[in-house]
């Protein structure tokens, strides 16, 4: 089952920054780029599970705060030569609010 959930007003997510969204035991990092595009990925670095939301956002990437792996916010893939991928979620902005698409089976897979 798919549903869109309201996350927060766009202006409560800092540009080149992120917020943590918690849903049923999993953490999702919701990131805002310089041009106000919003991306959401599972908040765990594929390396050692570092909280990606706490990293530095640049371009369309996030540098993990733990060991500086560079993760693409677009597809969740680690930048070469590192290998790994974290799950991505669809987002949209409507009337100044950020929405996140949650799919139940997907969330189940990610639960700890």
């Amino acid at each position: 089952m798919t549903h869109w959930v309201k996350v927060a007003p766009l202006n409560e997510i800092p540009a080149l920054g992120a917020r943590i969204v918690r849903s049923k035991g999993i953490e999702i990092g919701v990131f805002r780029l310089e041009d106000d595009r919003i991306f959401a990925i599972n908040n765990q670095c594929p390396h050692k599970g570092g909280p990606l939301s706490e990293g530095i956002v640049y371009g369309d990437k996030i540098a993990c705060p733990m060991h500086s792996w560079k993760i693409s916010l677009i597809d969740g893939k680690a930048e070469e030569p590192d290998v790994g991928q974290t799950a991505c979620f669809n987002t949209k902005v409507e009337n100044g609010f950020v929405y996140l698409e949650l799919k139940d089976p997907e969330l189940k897979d990610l639960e700890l």
Partner: protein
Amino acid sequence: MKLVVVGNGMAGMRTVEELLKIAPELYDITVFGDEPYPNYNRIMLSPVLANEQTVDDIILNTREWYAEHNITLYTNARINKIDRKNRVVYTEDGTSAEYDRLLLATGSKPFMLPIPGKDLEGVIGYRDIKDTNEMIATAKTHKHAVVIGGGLLGLEAANGLKIQGMEVTVVHKNEWLLEKQLDKTAGKMLQKNLEAKGLNFLLQKNTELLIGDTPDANGKCRVKTARFTDGLEIAADLVVMAIGIRPNFALAESAGIYCNKGIVVNDTMQTYDPRIYAVGECVAHRGISYGLVAPLFEMAKVCATHLANFGIGLYKGSVTSTKLKVTGIDLFSAGDFTGDSDTEEIVLHDAVGGIYKKLVIKNDKIIGGVLYGDTTDGSWYFQMLRDGKAIHEIRDHLMFGQDSLGNTGHQGQNKAAAMNNEMEVCGCNGVCKGTIVKAIQDQGLFTIDDVKKQTKAGSSCGSCVGLVEQILASTLGGGYAPPSTSKAICGCSDKNHEEVRAEIRAHKYLNIPDAMKGMAWRTPNGCATCRPALNYYLLSSWPHEAVDDPQSRFINERVHANIQKDGTFSVIPRMYGGVTTPDQLRKIADVADKYAVPMVKVTGGQRIDLLGVKKEDLMGMWKDLDMPSGYAYAKGIRTVKTCVGSEFCRFGTQNSTQMGIDIEKAFDHMWAPHKVKFAVSGCPRNCAESGIKDVGIIGVDSGWEIYVGGNGGIKTEAAQFLCKVKGHDEVLEYSGAFIQIYREEARYLDRTVHWIERVGLEYVKQRILEDSEGRKAAYERLLFALQGVVDPWAERVNNRDKHKEFETISV
């Protein structure tokens, strides 16, 4: 756009590789090479001749690589005409290609002595795979080889031919071998070693002519004898001329491009025709043509940025060092190793042990040197030479190498060669020497950055970078170009730290977007390396005016707490001078209970650490604690560690605790290039460990001693004595001025020890001790920068609405 590259060698293809890295989609690329092979590593031909490697081993870019990158490759295709008006190049057989940009990388050819007999069969240069194959083939059928020229290439050829089984005589017109790389002493030692390997030498001989045999069935004459100007004749079935190279510029000249002993280029590698660039051995840059690989790579990098239309990067010439690739012979030379009446020399010579080292010094700096027999410190000396580092402080030990400086950490330069493949190099990422060597060889890596990227070695704490560099140097031999320490801040810009800071000052940039725009940053909003550095440079250059950007700070500084491995944080409140009260302790205990803090620990800096705190609890804890932030997360003032001092201690000569409290209060909230730790001890027993702090203060009966540049971290460094002062206020002024100059001049992420290492303690002393006006002014600037700064915890507690980041959203 269309880019045509004439020359499929190391310089041309390196430029293409650099270009693909930064502008992969910009050009349709066509490459013409007159050899039948894809790009190979020309500097490794000598190991091929010496049976140590095969031709396949030295291919750098396979045909598949060209195909993968959509590069059209023509081999066996020599361009003989450039039509600049219509922008077309033509090969000898009429193939043509149009260009918008043309890159000439035509390389060089061996210089052949203009003597009778130079065109006989069996008289060759030493330049490419074809020459190498001819030498190997000749060795199977003939006996006597003569190599004309006792330079690097000649000796490598002679060594290879000997291994292939020939009798080899090296003819050289000078008094000793490698006169461009070695002085007489080292040259003679080299000759002795090579004679022991079975080579023969004829020195101070000029070749007059080469005499041919009777013609064979095809009417071709093979060389038989070489005659010298003094009448001596020797048998010669193969003559290899290795007396130098001449840039290939005939093609460019015929197209009307200005040449002068090479294709003349400016600092952007552009020729007389703005659409045409040139790199490599064919070039004359500021009147110099380089025949070594390291400068070619530097040129390639610069040229690529201009081809990519970034319009940045200048090539300003290269300082080169050389190494002879003859197994079992270690020599290294760089710079001016001859010296003159204005220079000093330090020489170590052990004739029996086969070791000779000479360094030439001018104005307290190494300007050149020769190492023979033991070259392990070559790259260390060369680095100091390139950086122009002052050496008087280590002069006594200089000759004995970097190991003699008493490093107790595991920086470990010089040990690379002795390590076996299983030994760990990078402790952070668990990378062994063998992994690094394999990556360098298999993936054709040439730079530290490549190795870091591919293997992760040296990419975390950085303490093993020196060792990685040694491994790179010893694996690549002459192909290694050591980076200058004034390297670019990161891949987003070509400017180095000093240039960035100078421009921030000159143009008064007050925020990151303006600074990036003004300095033509390549990326829209930088990267995780440059943004924190820029943020610091802005704040330290323009206190109270520049805008702090929280998104350009590492998480710890952004949320004023230390992130832990599980994503929780630690909270360390300020306790000035390490002194606390029962009230504070009760409060801390209550907070620890209320928030169920998993661990309470005393830190190395004499503070109390509450570990395992959830991000959303940080604000609540700070509010309940009602104590200032301890800045335990900051690249800035950390703690002032103190001993008990004269108030209680029976040995104490000074009130060290009060001094520590005063310092910590005076410099509270201070950001710096890296963390700054202080300690104050009340007597020379030094219980606060002042000897390993950025600023260590030791009370003595008559005043206070100030030590600087200590470090107890990765590599233990004892702090060095700066001065002794009488009173309390002087301690603040001197140590404050020291820290302020460090804040203004050190590179971001330099600890005080790294900064002092680079500028020299003499410089620091001059600024602090000799220039009393300057010292007072620096101290004033520090106090000004710290004026009115508020505690970050209290600020967040009082303005919760502005700091939504701390709240987790639940859906």
